[in-house]
Structure formats: C-alpha cells, structure tokens
C-alpha cells in the first residue's frame, strides 16, 4: 500500500530544513543583525519566545506521561509513553540547537558548567536542561537497544528506568517553573496581566496541561499520517485528565489576577486585554469545557482540533509573556524576520524527520512498528525487481524517496541562499542631530532657518566655546534668538552688548564698575562676566567665560544674506522647485515693486507661511 500522505509530508519537511540550512549559513557568517529583526529594545525574539520558551513547554508531555504511567501506574496511557519521551528528547534537543542560533557567542554555550552564578534563573535552566537531556537520552536508549544485540545494556538501563524517570520529573519541575522565574526580574517590561509573583507556579501548571494536550495531539497526528486507528480510549482518558488540570490552572490564574485587582484589565478593550482573552479561550477555557463532553471525547477529529488549539494557546502564552506583552513597555514593535521563522520551522522539521525515522525503525510503539514492518514486507514483495533492498515502507524504492528528499533540500537551500538578506537593514535618520547643519525653529509658527552649527563653533573658538552661546539658555528659554549676537543691521557687532550693560548698570556714571577706577578710563576690562553672572550662568571655576574674548559677530544683514541667499539661488535654478524668482530680493523683502507679487504667486497653496524668515 502506498502512503503518499507521509511521503508528501516528509518532502515538505525536507524543503523547510533546506531553507533553514541556508539561513543558518548566513546567520553564523554575518551575525544576528543580518539574520534577525532583533534590536536593543527587543533583544529576545522568536527564537527565545517560541523555540526555547515554547519548545521546553511543548516537550512537557515527556515528564507528564512518565509520571502518569510509571509513578501513578496508569497503564492505559502506556502506548503514549514512548512517543512522548521521544518527543521530549527531540524537543529538548531542538531547544539546545535553537539556543545555538540565538546565542551571540554559541561556542561558549558550555560556560555555565564552569562559570557559576546561582542567582541567575537562566543558570538553573541551563543546568536543568543539560541534565534532563542526559536523562532523556537514558530514557530513550532502551527503545533503541531493545531489538539490537546489546541486550546487556538494554537490561541494565531498563532496571534503572524508574529512578531515571523520577529524576526526569524532578528536573522538569525545576526548569519548567524556572522559565517563569526568568521573567520575574522584568516587572517594568511585562504587561500586568502576565506579570505576577506566581509566574513560576503558573508556568509549571500550564506545562502539565500543555504536556497532556501535546501527547493527544501527537498521537492523533501520527495515527492520521500512518493511516492507523486512533487510540480513542486512551485519548478519552487523557482528555478527562487534561480537563481537570486545565480547570485547576484556570482557577489559579484568575484567582491570582483577582487578588492583585487586575481583573478589570482583561475587559479594558486594550490590545493586551484582547490578547489575554484569546490566549485563555484557546488554551484553557474551550478545551476545559469541551473535554467534559462525552461526545467530544469519542470523536478523534474533535480531540485533534481541540488539543491543537490548546497547544497553540499555551505556546501563545509563552510568546505573550516573553515578547508580545512587552511591546507595551518598549513601544517598539518587533516582528520576526522571515529568516527567523525559517530557522524555527527548520528545527521543528528536522525534529519531525528524526521522529519519523526512529518510529519507523525502532519499537517506539511496538504495535505500530509491526504494522510498518508488515507494509514494508508487502512493498518488498510487490516490487522485487526494482527495489531489492527496500528500507522504507512507502511502497517506493528508498532510492527514489531519498532522491526526491535530497532534491527538495538542495533546491530549498539554494533558494534560501539567494533570497536571504546579506546586509543589515538600516534606518535613514530623520534629522541630523546637533552636529553640522541644523535646522532651527524660530518663533512660534512653522518657520525654520538653516543654522550652520559647525561654522559658529569654529569661529567662536572650537571645543571650549560651547558656553559662549549656550549659557544664554535658561530654564523655559525656547532658544537663543540670532539677534542676541547679530545685533546691528549693517556693521559687525561684539557679542557683548555694551549698550545694554551700560543701561542696566546705571548709565554714564557706571563705567568704573567694570573698567576700574582711574582717569582716563582704561579699555581693559577688570571684571569677567562670571564676576557678576556666576549664579545665572556657570559653575564656579568655569574657564569658558573667563577665556571669552568678545568675538565679533557678523551684522544681521550679512548673517542672514550669507546664510539664505546661496541656497535660494541654487533652488531658484532648480526646475523641479519651479520658483525662478526665489533668488531675488523681493522673495523676502516687501519693499520691491513687483517682487512681492512674483513671490506670492509662486507659493503653492497652503504653504504661505513657510520660507519667509
């Protein structure tokens, strides 16, 4: 019997894996900046939110089923135990591989082994995942060894099974909850609906719920793919268990929100509130209610759909807590680059392919394997001439499927290498800050002048001259007007306003206050600015103003003309601007005879105020 369903599915997985392989090359060669949309405000993205947070939670089925079967002696679920443990092993492997992509310095991934920081939740997660991966390898090993000549090792590991299972449950408890502890340090990032001191506990309980749903989902999908009878009795039992676990989770979560007086936020109509409702409906409320209906529990399709919804809902919970709920605080929307999706899906695909390979060659599900082997034998008999050594039960020769799969992989990888970005995305700056050319706003209306900051700085005395102009800034001052320095209309002026000082100091009798006593009066100033203005202007001991040498500023007319006219002339010559009279005096001055008209008629409607400075 042919099984095209499986064949097509595997071909798709190989395509995705090929695409991911291409992105992987670029990620390691060019860095995270090119391969991801991450930024300093969103340093954790899809690879942490989905691959690590979601991946660990998805693999929870392993410890939940191990506990149910081996500790609580629920033999009904025995058929699910080995697939669940294999999934957990692959899931944690995927988490480790996903981390290799996400870590900036992946070759240092082993560092938590020797550099310890027991205060870090991530340190604990790292150790637990390392140990649990080892434990899972020991749990999976008997499956691989069962039908091999290594019977001694098989029997030894089988005898150790129970302590190993219990160790696995202990480790899972710790790191499932520690993934919640991980987020406790960021109350300022996470939206209040997700941030609570119970995060570790909620993560642990939801991992159990998710684990049960994942086992159901996986069992249904495998049955469908291999065209097998679904294990309805076992699924029904799991649904009952899941319903109870979900109810517990629901009560704890809502009670916690009520205790913190946050229930109002759910129905506030905000984006976060609606996201919370969607998450809770999908992950908890719908399956919790529907699983209690006997009709649903008997329907394989119903269970398949509901468990998938719940799994998606809980993955959404992890993504929400570690990502989406933080947009509120960072105000920077992050959407993963397609390359990030490619890696995530590629890792999942690779896991799927390994899962199917193990399932087809080792007694993960002894009953299922017999089916597969029967089909394989049938295929051998039906086409002996073309496929003398048929390893795959698909009905096609393994050479053919291998050829198709490798073409899928290579073509997808080539496509990925062509399409993936090779340079970092860049933002063009809206305005140049501070240095060089600046546009200053003058007055209250939309009036702007070009201001050459660098030239002013150079003429006033380079680096140490900032205080020459900027000390004029006082709280509430919107900016120092140009006329503060460019005071006279036709002749260059000293920046120091002698007339105003004379006036304020008391007129012609007050010269001695600054110039000192003696006849005739000396031009040398005996007082520095800060002697009088210390309180308004500068800190004690500031050398800026004492070194101030009264540089003269160009006259107001020259300053404006030199600054405006060159640009006006250039623009007038530009046909695109279409203002040929812009360079003439009348463009700004009202005194001309025809000039004002000439300017006014050329101004596009609605822009009259602009440009007249």
């Amino acid at each position: 019997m042919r099984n095209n369903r499986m064949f097509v599915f595997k071909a798709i997985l190989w395509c995705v894996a090929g695409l991911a392989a291409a992105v992987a090359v670029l990620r390691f060669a060019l860095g995270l900046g090119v391969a991801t949309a991450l930024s300093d405000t969103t340093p954790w993205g899809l690879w942490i939110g989905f691959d690590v947070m979601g991946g660990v939670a998805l693999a929870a089925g392993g410890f939940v089923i191990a506990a149910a079967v081996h500790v609580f002696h629920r033999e009904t679920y025995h058929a699910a135990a080995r697939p669940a443990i294999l999934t957990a092993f692959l899931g944690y492997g995927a988490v480790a591989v996903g981390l290799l992509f996400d870590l900036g310095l992946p070759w240092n991934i082993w560092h938590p082994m020797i550099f310890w920081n027991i205060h870090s939740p991530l340190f604990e997660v790292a150790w637990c995942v390392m140990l649990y991966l080892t434990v899972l390898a020991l749990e999976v090993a008997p499956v691989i060894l069962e039908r091999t000549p290594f019977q001694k090792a098989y029997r030894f590991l089988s005898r150790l099974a129970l302590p190993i299972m219990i160790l696995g449950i202990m480790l899972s408890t710790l790191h499932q909850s520690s993934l919640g502890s991980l987020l406790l340090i960021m109350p300022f990032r996470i939206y209040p609906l997700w941030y609570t001191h119970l995060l570790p506990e909620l993560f642990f309980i939801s991992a159990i719920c998710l684990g049960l749903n994942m086992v159901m989902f996986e069992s249904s999908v495998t049955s469908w793919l291999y065209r097998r009878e679904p294990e309805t009795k076992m699924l029904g039992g799991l649904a009952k268990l899941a319903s109870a676990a979900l109810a517990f989770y629901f009560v704890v979560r809502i009670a916690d929100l009520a205790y913190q007086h946050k229930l109002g936020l759910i129905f506030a109509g905000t984006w976060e509130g609606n996201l919370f409702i969607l998450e809770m409906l999908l992950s908890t409320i719908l399956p919790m209610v529907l699983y209690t209906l006997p009709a649903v529990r008997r329907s394989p399709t119903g269970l398949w759909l509901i468990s998938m919804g719940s799994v998606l809902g809980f993955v959404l919970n992890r993504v929400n807590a570690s990502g989406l709920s933080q947009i509120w605080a960072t105000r920077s929307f992050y959407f993963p680059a397609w390359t990030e999706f490619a890696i995530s899906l590629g890792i999942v695909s690779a896991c799927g392919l390994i899962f199917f390979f193990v399932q087809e060659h080792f007694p993960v599900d002894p009953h299922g394997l017999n089916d597969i082997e029967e089909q394989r034998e049938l295929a051998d008999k039906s086409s002996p001439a073309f496929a003398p050594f048929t390893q795959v039960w698909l009905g096609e020769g393994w050479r053919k499927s291998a050829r198709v799969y490798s073409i899928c992989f290579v073509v997808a990888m080539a496509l990925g290498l062509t399409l993936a970005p090779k340079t970092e995305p860049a933002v063009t700056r809206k305005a140049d800050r501070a240095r060089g050319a600046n546009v200053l706003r003058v007055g209250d209306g939309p009036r702007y002048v070009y201001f050459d900051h660098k030239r002013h700085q150079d003429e006033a005395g380079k680096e140490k001259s900032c205080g020459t102009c900027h000390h004029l800034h006082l709280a509430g001052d919107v900016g120092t007007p140009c006329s503060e320095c460019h005071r006279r209309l036709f002749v260059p002026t000293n920046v120091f306003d002698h007339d105003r000082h004379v006036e304020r100091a008391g007129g012609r009798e007050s010269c001695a206050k600054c110039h000192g006593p003696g006849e005739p009066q000396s031009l040398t100033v005996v007082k520095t600015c800060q002697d009088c203005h210390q309180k308004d202007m500068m800190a004690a001991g500031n050398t800026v103003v004492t070194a101030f040498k009264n540089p003269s500023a160009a006259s107001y007319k020259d300053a404006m003309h030199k600054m405006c006219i060159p640009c006006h002339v250039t623009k007038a010559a530009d046909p695109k601007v279409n203002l040929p009279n812009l360079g003439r005096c009348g463009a700004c001055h009202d005194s001309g005879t025809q000039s004002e008209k000439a300017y006014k008629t050329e101004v596009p409607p609605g822009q009259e105020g602009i440009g007249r400075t």
Partner: protein
Amino acid sequence: MIQNPCILTDVTKCIGCEQCVAACKKINGLPAEDAPPRPGNSVDGLSADRWTTIIRRPDNHFVRKQCRHCAEPACVSVCPVGALQKTPEGPVIYDKSICMGCRYCMMSCPYGIPHYEWNSAAPSVRKCIMCYGNLKSGKISEPACVTACPQKATLFGTRDAMLAEARERLQAEPGKYVQTIWGEHEVGGTSVLLIADIPLEFLALNQGHPLGDKPLPERTWAALKPVPFEFVGMGLLMGGVYWIIERRKKLALEAGGAAAKDTRGEAGHEK
C-alpha cells in the same frame, strides 16, 4: 581608586554639547561616527558605539543617559555565567571571554542600558564601565566624560559626597529643582545620580509606574532560593506515591488473589 565612585549630573547645567560623548568614545576607542540605528531601537541615541548620550527634551533640557551602575544590578544577577560583574569598588564591568551572548542582561535592565553589536559575527555587550580600568590603574582620576564637561554639569566623587552635593543644591534653590535625587533609592540605589528641573522618569522603562526602591534581583532570588528543597521534595513525593501504590497493589493481590488482575506494577516497557 576611590571606593563607591559616583557620577552626579545636574541637568540644569547641561548645555547638550556632547563633549562627554566625544570624550567617552575617545577613551574607549569607539568609532567617532555612530552607525545608523537598527530598526526598532529606542530613540535615546545609545548604541554599542555610544555608551553615553544626551537626550534632548522640550524647552532646551539636556539629559545625559549612561549606565547607572546600580548597587544591586539586575544585569549582574541574571547573567548565567557571571560575565557582568559588580567590582568591589562599585562600577559594573563586562568580560567578553566569559559571555555566551544570551542577552538576558539587556532584557533585565530597567534603564535599557546594555547594547549589542548586532552586525558582528562575534558580538559583545557594550555599555558604560565608568572608565573602570583607567581609574583603577590611576591613569585618570575621574571618568573621561566628567573631565570633558565644559559646564561642570557632571561631577565625580564618592557616592556620599555626591549625595551631599545634590542635597545642598536642592536646598539652595528649592524653586528651581524638582526635589528628587534620581538614583538615590530607585531599584536599591544607583551610582549615577541626577538632579533636574524636570521629572526624569522617562529614563527608565516603566510606563509611568515608578520602578520602586526594591532591588530587582530580590524578585528572582525569592523564587530561586527554595529550588533545592523543591527538587528534593518532588523526588520524595514521586518516590512516595510510587511506593504507596505499589504496596497497595501487593496487599490487594495477597487479599484478593485471582480477583486482582492486571495489577502488575512493573515499569511498562519491561513487559
């Protein structure tokens, strides 16, 4: 090097000339020109190549942003390998040779200080280190940004001295300043203090809610402290449940004989 070094910035004195930024870039060997910002980065101007920056606020207020060198830094507490360290003197420094690049420090900083070299294939976390190496070796007596400031808007000294100076200024001109020393108690106190005539809550990622005075690491430590007990407890619980169920079955077998069928408590895959 002095114990508990601290930088006090008086926002009312700052004129926004960015001499501090230039000096910081020079002493730390950072490129003078900033690379274009990454899409999605915050607009405060900080980047891997710019460890201190001036934020322009309305009405010519210039607020300097840099690492706050917290008394109990969240970044140090969350780093799984201890690549970020609180030195015995006070500044928080970074060691690339230990770092594995998880970026948890960037997630945990309430001020959004650590920045990443996104365009590098071997990236580091970059942030202000209060010129620790140079101060320690005695090459300079105060951080480069402080020396560079033409307005003496930013000062350097022990934390106690800076707090005293800040209090003195607030008292001398109560009408001018907002009566808060930013960094005095926030998240357990920081070694970079600011006083200003405008509120400075915007420096932290807090959405208008105050950060509170409780150090952030206490939150995770409360969850991590009982971990060994949870671990052992779960083991005992699982072992206990197994033992009880196993014993019950044995008793039922002895009592019921043939009535108790299919009650083998063996691990399933041994069948």
